[in-house]
């Protein structure tokens, strides 16, 4: 958009200069080099998971598998109960997404759209709590859940999401502030209650922000490792993260194929979600990265 017509002809002339061409070459060479470095592990993961065992350990490396086998995927589902792990993780992830969307929307609404005395101090406190390392609260929170008899249940992994999280409160509050206050005022004059304004005006306008939140929460629950590690002993309750880690610790590298197949399966939903929601994703990152 910055280019005017005169500018663009100047640019083309500049394009032909050897110095410019050399510079482009260097830029693309470095970028291609890094792209290879970044993508080779993906390639290695996926090809290992579909190679026949002889080719996994073949030397020199077999870059293109001669045959594609699904035996490692079958192995991943039979050596460990991977299907159960996936189902377990889905249950937790869905429960936390519901909890996080509901609770954070309510809290952020109270901080951004209602003019009351504690709105600002409370927000400052939420921000401050982001600095408390999880390691500090880990043990007392464990003891609370143990006292409640919640060990080896999904409650410690899901219930907290129903009470909001500072990062999400921050994200939603910033978004709610961008919705004109006049909309709320007009509705109030028409006699709408705060709950009606919340559910019928603010929430429908905040779908992109709520989607970002749901996405981050889902991936967070899918990837969560330390929570299941601390709270789950019963192998039937394992999530995919803890199940995969234990699979690796038990079998070491003896079951390389199935291990890579299971890792591919764990990575897959994250990649699929990323490609489906790339815009939301990147907006979320850059929004929460610094701006706001």
């Amino acid at each position, binding site marked *: 958009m910055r280019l005017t017509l005169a500018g663009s002809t100047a640019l083309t002339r500049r394009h032909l200069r050897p110095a410019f061409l050399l510079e482009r070459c260097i830029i*693309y060479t470095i*970028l291609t080099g890094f792209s290879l470095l970044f993508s080779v592990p993906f390639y290695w993961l996926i090809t290992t998971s579909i190679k026949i065992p002889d080719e996994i350990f073949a030397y020199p490396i077999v870059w293109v598998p001669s045959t594609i086998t699904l035996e490692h995927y079958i192995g991943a589902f039979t050596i460990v109960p991977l299907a159960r792990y996936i189902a377990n993780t889905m249950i937790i992830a869905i429960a936390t997404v519901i909890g996080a969307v509901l609770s954070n929307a*309510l809290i952020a609404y109270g901080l951004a759209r209602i003019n009351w*005395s504690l709105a600002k101090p409370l927000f400052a406190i939420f921000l401050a*709590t982001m600095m408390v390392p999880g*390691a500090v609260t880990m043990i007392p929170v464990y003891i609370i859940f143990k006292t409640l008899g919640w060990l080896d249940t999904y409650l410690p992994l899901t219930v907290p999401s129903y009470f909001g999280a500072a990062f999400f409160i921050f994200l939603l509050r910033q978004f709610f502030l961008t919705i004109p206050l006049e909309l709320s005022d007009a509705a109030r004059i028409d006699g709408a209650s705060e709950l009606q304004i919340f559910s019928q005006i603010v929430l429908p306008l905040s779908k992109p922000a709520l989607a970002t939140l749901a996405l981050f929460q889902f991936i967070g629950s899918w*990837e969560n490792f330390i929570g299941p590690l601390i709270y789950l002993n019963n192998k039937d309750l394992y999530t995919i993260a803890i199940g995969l880690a234990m699979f690796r610790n038990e079998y070491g590298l003896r079951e390389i194929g199935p291990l890579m197949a299971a890792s591919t399966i764990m990575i897959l939903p994250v990649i699929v979600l990323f490609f489906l929601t790339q815009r939301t994703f990147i907006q979320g990152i850059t929004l929460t990265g610094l701006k706001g």
Partner: protein
Amino acid sequence: MIQVSALRLRISRRRLECELWGLLFTSLGILHLIWLTAYPVLASLYYSFTSYSVIGRWRWIGLQNYERLFQDPEFYNAIYNTLYLIVLGLPIGIFASFLLAILLNQRVRGLSVYRTLFYLPSILPAVATAVLWTWIFHPTHGLLNIALQLLGIVGPNWLADPAWAKPALIVMGLWGAGGSTLVFLAGLQDVPQELYDAAMVDGAGRWAKFRYITIPFMSPYLFFSLVTGLIGGFQAFTSAYVLTFGGPVRSTVTYVFYLWENGFSYLKMGYACALAWVLFVVIVVFTLITFHLVGPRVYYAGR
């Protein structure tokens, strides 16, 4: 007069309603603050002065946990490992992702492809990443050593050699460093083009433009990744757990790994809480130092 006081009454009633609605909407969050933040933080401080172990009796032992901690060679080992990972890994990570962002900002074709490639590894589950890298680090059949062999280098036995396990963790971490590339790129695209144009008119060279325009404008972003990287680095756990389980010879026992061991393997919860509080203080101190040393050099446009 009556009308005025009625109005005032109505206003104060409206105010009271706002206060109540505010309280109602944020009540879940307030409960969170009490139940899952304030109480645990204080309880953890209290436990750190006791011999709490979940099972069996526990008693107040004053500063004994802290005294023991400062004589504990494992504590210093964990600090050394954690600092090693931060001091080497963080600058390399920030430098690499900043470099990539600058290259991507040169109006390259296929920007979205590069961006996706660099970004994707940073959002992958840490467990899956670590499992994949245990295979990449395999001494004889792993991708890394085979690649090194092509360059004529005999790669080390990464995960079995105490001298190479920490570098292995750093290498694996660099694969995920592209996350900040995205943030840097967003920042670079916000630098006003007029400034570059004006500098060009004034005859400024490449380096001058980079040094006096790009760097100042990007300093808040760089500072932000330094601080968050520092805070995150002190809490490294999952990668060390899955990739090496603290080994070999405890060379990858990070601070939080040691804390977790004490709390949940040795069941020395009081001691673990003392470790947690030392970590808390260390993080706050490091963050403050960073703000003091680097903060004043950060340039915020329009402020």
